[in-house]
Every structure is written in C-alpha cells, then in structure tokens.
C-alpha cells in the first residue's frame, strides 16, 4: 500500500483547523515533476475540504466529487512551489458538504473554487476509516513527508472527428491499472474527476486554438470552469467519449461546452471559458 496517501494525495499538513468551519493547509509540489496541472491544484483544495468533512462526520462518511459551480484559474503552479490551501465550509452534514476554497503559490492566487458540493457516502466503501482518522491526526500534527507524489500517467486520448473551431470529439482510455487507483480509492478504485477535467480542458484548448477568431500571436488559456457536474463514478479501464462544442464570445474568447459519456450515458458535464493569452 505504498501508494496509499501518496499517489493521489495533495495535502501534506493541515496548519489551521476550525472543526466543520474552515481549514488551512499546505502541499509541497515536488520539484521533479514536469508540471502540476491546475486541476490537481483544485484537487488539493477539494481534498482539504474532504478532510474537514470527514473529521466532522467522525470518518463515517466522506464526500465525493459531484458539483463545482465555478473554478477560477488565476495562474500556473510550477513544480517546487509550496501550495497554500484554504477552505471555508458553508454547510456539512451526513448528506453533503458545501464549500469554497482557494490555493496560493507564494503570494499569488492560483485557483479559486466557489459553490462546490460533495455528496457524502460511507467511508468504509472507499477506504479504511481507521487509517483515515490516523492520517488526519498526522496531517494536523507534524504533517506527512513531502515528495510522495510522483505524477500521474497521462491517459491515452485519441482525437476524433470535429469541425475546426466549432467542435471536437475524442476518446479517453482510462487506464486499467495506475498507482493513483491505490489512493483514489483503496477499496473502490475510481478515476479522479479532476483528471477527467484536465483531459477535457486539454481538448477544449485544442479546439479553441484552431478557432479562426483567435488573435495572432496568442494561445487560448482557461479563465474559469463552471457547471461542473459529475454524474457517476468512472472505474478503471473505462472508455470515455469526450465532446467539446465552442461558442465564441468575442475578442478571441469563448465558452466551450464539455461532456463525457460512457456506454452511451453522460458521466460528466462542464463549461470552460477561455481567453487569448499572448505567447511569450
């Protein structure tokens, strides 16, 4: 179980904690990584909120990713950075946790999460309640040893048909085996929603980069993601049909409607707003 609390865990230490109300924490992004995507920064914020929610419920239930009304992307987080994490819990009971949060890198705001909601499910279905409780004590005390995260394998994405600048389809092959499944989650492996969002953002930016209204010398950059809704769990080995539909909003910016389907059923939907950023 070397990957448990390592392969997909993004809170090293909880530095401030008001039960059921708020928390602050930190995560040292390993310097050896090639990159640390914004979606993993969002994952770190969500995990801090999950710790608060699980502690509030005495580790009987845990939240799972479901709704994020808005994620604002402010800047990239380079490998080697120390992420500062903060969450404010709007409400938390055995049914769901509602929260907002943010991550900073140095003095710079990296990401904000607004109006997020995670339904609570029995912890024992996913992980050992006892091990989670012990881990929480460690995080609230001396903290975990940094540098446990070694990156995630990039899932295979096969580009499909589309209309340049208007729509783009792709197939994402969720790996059948990956280290992060031992951490997310040990008793029930689930493809992390944030990795799906990362793949969908990549697809959206490919579509936006081919748009005829993109100003010369710029490339599309994500501004915010809204209406993120995860409808079902994605197991290892699943094949997902991704779809992106673009609607220009002027000035080279636009909104892209994103969806993922498995076996003909929609498993997630989201909207990405992007804007042109001048290439350095």
């Amino acid at each position, binding site marked *: 179980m070397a990957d448990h609390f390592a392969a997909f865990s993004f809170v090293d230490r909880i530095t401030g904690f008001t039960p059921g109300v708020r928390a602050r924490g930190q995560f040292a992004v390993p310097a050896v990584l090639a990159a640390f995507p914004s979606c993993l920064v969002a994952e770190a914020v969500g995990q801090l909120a999950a710790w608060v929610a699980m502690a509030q419920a005495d580790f009987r239930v845990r939240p799972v990713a479901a709704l994020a009304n808005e994620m604002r992307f402010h800047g990239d987080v380079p490998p080697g950075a120390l992420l500062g994490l903060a969450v404010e819990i709007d409400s938390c009971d055995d*049914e769901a946790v509602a929260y907002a949060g943010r991550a900073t890198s140095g003095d710079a705001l990296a990401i904000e999460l607004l109006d997020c909601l995670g339904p609570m499910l029995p912890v024992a279905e996913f992980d050992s309640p006892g091990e989670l409780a012990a881990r929480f004590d460690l995080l609230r005390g001396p903290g975990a040893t940094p540098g446990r995260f070694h990156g995630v394998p990039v899932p295979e994405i096969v580009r499909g048909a589309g209309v340049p600048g208007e729509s783009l389809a792709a197939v994402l092959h969720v790996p059948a085996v990956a280290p992060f499944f031992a951490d997310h989650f040990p008793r029930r492996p689930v493809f992390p929603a944030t990795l799906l969002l990362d793949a969908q953002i990549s697809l959206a930016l490919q579509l936006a980069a081919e748009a005829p209204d993109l100003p010369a010398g710029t490339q599309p950059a994500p501004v915010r993601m809204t209406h993120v*809704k*995860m409808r079902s769990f994605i197991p290892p080995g699943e094949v997902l049909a991704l779809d992106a539909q673009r609607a220009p909003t002027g000035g080279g910016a636009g909104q892209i409607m994103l969806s993922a389907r498995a076996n003909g059923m929609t498993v997630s939907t989201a909207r990405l707003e992007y804007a042109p950023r001048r290439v350095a």
Partner: protein
Amino acid sequence: MAQQEITRDEIMAVFPTIAETMADALGCDVDDIKLDVSLIEGLDAESIDFLDMVFRLERAFKIKIPRGKIVENARGALSEAEFEQNGLVTDAGLAQLRAYLSEVPAERFRTPTKVKDIPRLFTPETFCKLVISAQRSAKAAS
C-alpha cells in the same frame, strides 16, 4: 402542524427565478421549464440534478432546504408510519401526496406508489412550493 395553503400568486412570484435556476442546472432552455413538466420524465433530471437544483435554489433565495424536505412537506401532518409502510406509500399517504402535488395529473400517480419513485412526480411547481415553505420557515424563525 397544519400547513398554510400556498397560493397561486405565491407560486407565480417565485417561478421565474426557479425556472432560470433549473434551466441553468439542467442545461436546457428556460422556456422548457413549465410549471407542470415532470423533471425526470420530461427534462431527464437525475438525482445529481436534484441536488444541484436544491443547492442553487438555496443560494438564489438565501434559504436553507434540508435534504428530504420535499417528501417531509408532502407528508404533511401524517407520521412516517402513516405515510409509508415497507417502502410503499399508504392509502392515506397517497391521498396526502395527491393533495400536496395537486399540479400533477391524477394518471401519473401509480398504485401502489413506491417511496423511492416519489421524485418521478416532481415538477417545477413542487420546487416553488418547497421554496415558499422554506421562506415561511425562515420568516417565522426570524
């Protein structure tokens, strides 16, 4: 405790905001949100959409809607045991449900009705009543 009747004027006062909120949550046109359309059978809503709609309505109206509040409201003065037995809505419960969901055509109520199938009856008007009820509770508490 007897519930004060919800008037048509009260429903129409909150409906525009509820229609906008539901359309945003379901990703459909606001014109698709009719007062009496079935959210599940007419608008393909799933359980996560109900969670989303309640979450959005809480913020839009600055109210708190406890989980399971719709069924609790629908139950009215009946106790849980009077309302359901072994997962099925009792005759008394069904009569109460028909009265609370008065906007739902009679043919959409099945006999027997499973408790887990009650959400299949929900319409935007159901949520209008839910919001009005929560607003009244908040006003009474203040």
